[in-house]
């Protein structure tokens, strides 16, 4: 799915300023520039606090990095981007020093560039299909870092561009959930001229961006800034409102809402169902991160408690696992360990997070899997029993299947175990709409172009449709759904219908 067709991209590339910019530096010289390194806070320093790890690029650095981009005739990077950002265009704006134009280009297709620049798995998307990676065998242009730079630059000017809004059409639509899927749907719907209300179950807006992803990776003020921008576009936010509980879909229809976008996420944490998993001190990463990020549990003036574990094991290899283990380190863990049943190479977390985790002294127990937990007489977990694994034949996902090594069990002392093996779709909405067609995994089934569900006025996207996925895919879904809803409402209100 891409935002623009090839003809349009080509015409943009032929714009005079881009042609001149290309001529300015020879390709050979461009490819000789080394990819710059993102300035970071010292690992020992940052593991003591919650400050953001990456400092961001300076203007000078960003321009040099932008010069590396060859502005290819066939920009393969764009096909690697789930929302089809016009990548060469925004990078060339940076090279030309027109940082605000770069931000605006990003916002044509991406509602939250400052967020995506920080959390997208670029190495598996745009940067993977960069000409440097594909053809030159060199490190790709740092597209993610540049995205972050342009978005931050715009935010720091204090007056971010508020997208234009069509004339208000007086039609009410509802967005359920304020995660990336909901926010991007809300933005486009407001742009089309609808009266948009976002309903959020929690007392804070932002979904996983707030309760899950920690401050050291994505500061809350960035998310709040984006939400404020939506408020400026006229989007209304209602917190502490669980659709299906506080009011039903029928109630909302009675209130005049004509269509719904469901972006309720995949909130339900999975457990392994092994002995001892309900002991005290064994908890889901969602619980751990929610306590620390949403509830402020690590700060003394906040009421919510959290245990500061000394020997902490985090089970899993994704971003959530990395966020949990690095949070544990920051809360003073002596040993903060990742336990993952496959090898390091197979870990699904972003490369940068793995790299940062290693720098911060996180231990990796790869090819290990917990089989049970033991506890003291009060039920506090004190040991985990791990079984060694080895890699066998590739499975359906193409990754080599981990196979347990018989008789290899051993014990490791722990006082906190954080289970981070994935999430299932939040069941609240499906429970309240028995007619809604669901998959056997509990996700909402939708048409992949319009995101329309089996209930015509209801559209859905993000993790509730995909299971645990990514911020950028959730946002892409939100945009597609907004277009789908727009078309649906127009067809319904066409005269003669």
């Amino acid at each position, binding site marked *: 799915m891409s935002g623009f067709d090839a003809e349009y991209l080509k015409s943009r590339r032929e714009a005079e300023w881009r042609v001149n910019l290309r001529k300015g530096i020879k390709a050979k010289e461009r490819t000789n520039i080394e990819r710059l390194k993102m300035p970071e806070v010292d690992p020992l320093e940052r593991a003591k606090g919650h400050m953001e790890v990456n400092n961001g690029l300076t203007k000078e650095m960003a321009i040099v990095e932008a010069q590396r981009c060859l502005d290819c005739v066939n920009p393969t990077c764009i096909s690697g981007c789930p929302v089809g950002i016009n990548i060469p265009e925004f990078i060339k704006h940076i090279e030309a020093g027109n940082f605000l134009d770069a931000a605006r280009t990003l916002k044509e297709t991406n509602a939250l560039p400052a967020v995506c620049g920080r959390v997208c798995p670029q190495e598996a998307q745009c940067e993977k299909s960069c000409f440097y990676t594909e053809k030159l065998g060199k490190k790709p242009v740092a597209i993610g870092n540049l995205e972050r730079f342009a978005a931050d630059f715009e935010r720091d000017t204090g007056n971010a561009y508020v997208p234009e809004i069509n004339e208000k059409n007086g039609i009410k639509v509802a967005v359920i959930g304020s995660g990336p899927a909901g926010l991007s749907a809300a933005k486009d719907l407001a742009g089309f001229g609808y009266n948009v209300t976002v309903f959020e179950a929690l*007392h804070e807006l932002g979904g996983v961006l707030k309760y899950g992803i920690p401050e050291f990776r994505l500061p809350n003020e960035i998310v709040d800034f984006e939400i404020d921008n939506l408020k400026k576009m006229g989007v209304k936010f209602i917190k502490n409102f669980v659709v299906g509980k*506080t009011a039903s879909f029928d109630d909302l229809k009675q209130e005049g809402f004509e269509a719904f976008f469901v972006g309720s996420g995949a*909130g339900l944490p999975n*457990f392994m169902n092994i002995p001892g998993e309900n002991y005290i001190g064994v908890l889901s990463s969602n619980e751990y991160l929610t306590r620390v990020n949403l509830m402020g549990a690590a700060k003394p003036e*906040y009421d919510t408690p959290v245990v500061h574990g000394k020997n902490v094991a985090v089970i899993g290899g994704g971003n959530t696992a990395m966020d949990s283990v690095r949070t544990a380190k920051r809360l003073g863990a002596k040993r903060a360990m990742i336990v993952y049943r496959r090898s390091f190479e197979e870990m699904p977390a972003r490369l940068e997070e793995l790299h940062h985790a290693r720098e911060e002294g996180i231990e990796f127990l790869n090819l290990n899997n917990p089989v049970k937990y033991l506890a003291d007489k*009060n*039920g506090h977990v004190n040991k985990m029993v791990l079984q060694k694994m080895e890699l066998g034949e590739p499975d359906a996902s193409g990754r080599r299947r981990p196979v347990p090594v018989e008789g290899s069990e051993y014990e490791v002392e722990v006082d906190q175990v954080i289970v981070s093996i994935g999430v299932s779709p939040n069941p609240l909405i499906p429970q309240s709409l028995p007619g809604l067609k669901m998959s056997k995994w509990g996700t909402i089934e939708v048409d992949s172009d319009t995101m329309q569900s089996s209930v015509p006025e209801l559209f859905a996207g993000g993790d509730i449709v995909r299971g645990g996925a990514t911020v950028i895919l959730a946002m892409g879904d939100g945009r597609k759904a907004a277009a789908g809803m727009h078309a649906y409402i127009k067809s319904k209100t066409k005269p003669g219908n």
Partner: protein
Amino acid sequence: MSRIVTKEFLSENVVKLELEAPLIAKKRKAGHFVIVKIGKEGERIPLTISQANPDKGTITLIIQRVGVTSHKLSMMNEGDEVTDLVGPLGHATKIENVGTVLCAGGGVGIAPLLPIVEAMHDAGNRIITVLAARNRELLILEKEIRAHSDEVIIMTDDGSYGTKGLVTNGMEEVINREKVNLAITIGPAIMMKFTSMLTKKYSIPTIASLNSIMVDGTGMCGACRVSVGGKTKFVCVDGPEFDAHEVDFDELLMRLGAYKEQEIEAYSRYLEVIKNR
């Protein structure tokens, strides 16, 4: 924001708050709960909706002072506002006419029991309610429970009111006397454990409403998990009511102690602070 309309102490440590919450009042059924949070630094705690007045747009919560948040709530006054209130959450009680229902309420558990007693009575059941408290002063909502019960038996630990003895003594007397079709037990986990053992002995189907630790109350964190019939369930979205005979009460009791140390420490710090005001 939700404004406190009326406030009343039911006993020294139990307070009743009536809050403005028109949407919740309209939707709420017996068995539902809300999550409450006070101030930016507050924690999220679950509280059962004891009563609701949809016309007036209010709900009633009954709170026992046991920690920082319940204490803060008890210090709030009419006109004050609770920062965050969300609900109604959980599954409502299945209300049907089954015949004779034996209800057991212990301590502040009598508050969540009240709406169930009321609804079950309205559905045409014969209701016998056993209320238990440590002493007469701590017994709450007797009048309201009486208004919806065919018979009320009161048990106190010290014999200062009703009969001296445990809630199970009162229940067993009824079970030996007449046919009971369903039992409902709400109170401290330890009480629910023993009432459930009793009714299991007599093969009486029993429902317990569990009071696990919660954070979000929407199924997102798993803090509230319990084992029911050997399977892990989330109290906030799968419950709060379960088949009492399948609940692992020992595990529930253990898990309720998960943050004991922190809670005690925070509460004593808090009491120190308000003392010095």
